[in-house]
């Protein structure tokens, strides 16, 4: 079902590690009146001042390049992932 751009979308946003420390929360449900991933990421960066931090973005559990022209749908999950340190 195609959404009108004028509709708000609700997105689950998750933060981890040093990012969660900076945002001071791990998860939030936020509405946007635009649906380009790049714009959503930019607005979150501005909201929490994440410009100095390095991170990757995942959309629905897959890493994506947030500069690609990717459209986010209502109910999608975006995560801000700082550098990996497993092992």
């Amino acid at each position, binding site marked *: 079902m195609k959404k009108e751009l004028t509709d708000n979308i609700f997105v689950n946003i998750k933060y*981890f590690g040093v990012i969660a420390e900076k945002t001071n929360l791990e998860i939030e449900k936020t509405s946007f009146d635009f649906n380009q991933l790049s714009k959503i990421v930019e607005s979150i960066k501005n909201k929490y001042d994440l410009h100095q931090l390095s991170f990757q973005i995942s959309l629905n559990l897959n890493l994506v390049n947030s500069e690609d022209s990717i459209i986010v749908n209502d109910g999608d999950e975006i995560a801000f992932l700082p550098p*990996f340190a*497993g092992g």
Partner: protein
Amino acid sequence: MKNFFLNGPISPDFISNSIYKHQIKHNIGAHNIFLGQVRKDTIKSNVVSAIEYSAYEEMANKKITDIRESTFEKFDLTCLHIYHSLGVVEVGQIGFFVFVSSSRRKNVYDATKFIVDMIKNTVPIFGKEIFENNEYNWKVNK
């Protein structure tokens, strides 16, 4: 979705129990085990006392499931188990356990290396190095 995470350190008993369970698998001739142990590193004169691990669990479990499948496609293996700790793992304790089994040894080293590298590089696990003075540093895999 299978869960590859354990709370707290991975004990030597957990490892021996995993080995023990493979003794009924009579087509196995070679096991290779990788263990990641927390090092007492000194970072800018701060001494590490523990690493506190967290993960984007849902994505990490999916990624590890994918890594497991691609490892089985790439290498001729009988069994493959992967475990990673969440929460605090102290210096000297084990937070990562990869257990590769095959009928013959040829494949096992490369398979183990492949899995360990893939997990370090592509799975969203985060580590907070906690220092003896209670300060901390967010760890980054090189």
